[in-house]
């Protein structure tokens, strides 16, 4: 970044700067305020506050947190109202370009901004996987969208993507949009899922597919896209246990719209450019129990830390990140007594936080590698078993969370811990 011209920038100061005004950023902002930070700036690239929530007009948000099932916009409203009462500054339609020495360089219609921040929270959310992430061969016609983009057009802009729709991916995003399209008069031809089970919540399978007789093609994948100008058809085929195509199972489905719900990728370009250490399994930064990255004073939360299943669990962690960012800004950082690593062991894809620097009760979240029935979750050091919890079932699509008290002894003696799954007692 050139130094010339830095003088032309609009100078701002913040105790805590938060990048992203979605549910994570909002929760972090409120928590930061509650914990003492006075001057909080929340930056978002959209012209609205709430991130992805305004387009998630379906309910199911906040059940654990508030007891009632809210729609996305209602959940956002709850936080935005509180935030506005708390004098938190929001900068909309503002894009962060770079961060230099904790000075955020951003741009909006007022000009270039230089926000000197004592601490920063990354809450940038995710982007969606595209057709090319799974390399679907064929033509490149119009009518192909990721599910989130289609949802924005239908719910925010009053535009329908198409009439005869095939959806790939049975995660909640795909299921919810299947129902939405059905409600709006589209002909939903089916949801294609490569796994032998739907990856979204059973409630959504029932209320989005079963209720409306929308076919679910399990163990299927999309192998070709055809369309000279607009989409004309897709070909799907069954896969075997190894994931290979079963020859002869190919079927062509005439359609004009293909929605892809292939999964989310945490947005971490800023983190990458700062050399912040990322976890290749979560896609987000390696963090400690404060949700602090390996860059002192930069914290990470929300979907850019890991893809959460529910906003309720995301909010729990985001509040912690905001609190700690606030404490950092006020210089009230407890001196770390040491650092131990939390390693994912057998059956576990990843565990967050990956590092622990202080004793205390920690909210762990993890994902397993494959589905299982009854299984034991164990936490061990090299020598002893610290914790054991019986789980009735596990599934990679369902995040596992649990609280565990980390002792002073473990930190002082640098005892790394491992979290793994064990069928044995």
């Amino acid at each position, binding site marked *: 970044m050139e130094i010339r011209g830095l003088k032309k920038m609009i100078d701002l100061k913040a105790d805590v700067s938060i990048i992203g005004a979605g549910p994570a950023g909002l929760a972090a902002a409120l928590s930061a305020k509650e914990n003492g930070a006075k001057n909080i700036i929340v930056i978002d690239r959209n012209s609205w506050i709430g991130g992805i929530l305004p387009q998630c007009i379906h309910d199911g948000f906040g059940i654990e947190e508030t007891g009632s099932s809210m*729609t996305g*916009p*209602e959940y956002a*409203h709850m936080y935005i109202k509180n935030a506005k009462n708390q004098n938190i500054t929001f900068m909309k339609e503002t894009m962060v370009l770079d961060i230099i020495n904790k000075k955020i360089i951003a741009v909006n219609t007022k000009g270039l901004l230089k926000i000197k921040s004592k601490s920063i929270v990354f809450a940038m959310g995710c982007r969606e996987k595209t057709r090319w992430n799974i390399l679907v061969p064929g033509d490149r016609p119009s009518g192909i969208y990721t599910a989130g983009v289609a949802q924005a057009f239908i719910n925010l802009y*009053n535009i329908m993507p198409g009439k005869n729709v095939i959806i790939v991916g049975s995660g909640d995003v795909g299921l919810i949009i299947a129902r939405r399209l059905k409600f709006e008069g589209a002909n939903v031809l089916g949801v294609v899922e490569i796994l032998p089970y739907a990856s979204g919540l059973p*409630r959504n399978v029932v*209320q989005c597919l079963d209720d409306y007789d929308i076919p679910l093609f399990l163990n299927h994948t999309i192998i070709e896209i055809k369309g000279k100008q607009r989409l004309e058809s897709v070909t799907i085929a069954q896969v075997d246990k190894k994931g290979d195509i079963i020859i002869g199972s190919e079927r062509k489905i005439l359609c004009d719209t293909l929605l892809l719900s292939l999964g989310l990728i945490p947005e971490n370009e800023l983190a990458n450019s700062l050399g912040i250490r990322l976890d290749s399994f979560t896609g987000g930064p390696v963090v400690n129990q404060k949700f602090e990255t390996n860059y002192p004073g930069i914290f990470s939360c929300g979907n850019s830390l890991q893809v959460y299943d529910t906003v309720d669990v995301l909010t729990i962690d985001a509040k912690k990140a905001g609190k700690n960012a606030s404490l950092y800004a006020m210089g009230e950082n407890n001196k770390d007594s040491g650092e131990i690593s939390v390693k994912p062991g057998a059956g576990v894809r990843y565990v967050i936080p990956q590092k622990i620097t202080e004793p205390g009760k920690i909210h762990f979240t993890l994902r397993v590698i494959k589905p299982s029935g009854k299984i034991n979750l164990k936490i061990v050091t090299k020598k002893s078993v610290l914790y054991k919890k019986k789980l009735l079932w596990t599934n990679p699509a369902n995040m596992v969370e649990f609280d565990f008290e980390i002792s002073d002894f473990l930190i002082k003696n640098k005892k790394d811990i491992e979290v793994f799954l064990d069928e044995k007692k």
Partner: protein
Amino acid sequence: MKKNKEITCIVCPIGCKIIVKTDGNSVQLIVGNKCKKGFEYARNEALDPRRMLTSSILVLNGEWPLVSVKSSKPVPKQKIFKVLDEIKKKKVKAPVKFGQKIIENVANTNIDIIATKQIPKI
């Protein structure tokens, strides 16, 4: 006429497949549930299935062309598309307040349709 309905319970992620024998007015038999909550869910699903409905209503002269709405209570399943028809025909003038009742007693269900966000006037 007695019918056997197969219901996938959604109370917890186990998703028990529960069979309910019903004549439409009362339930004769429920099998397959592993807990009491599942029993209750299956009974309600068989006799009186209802769903929370969310949708959009056209806004005139607003900053955004649509306002997201929800039903004030779960809607009987068999009335969903009638309710949606009314929702699709309705137009509301901006500004729309958060929580504003846009349709009262939609499709004779005694359920209202409520705005879930605010839309300022353009």
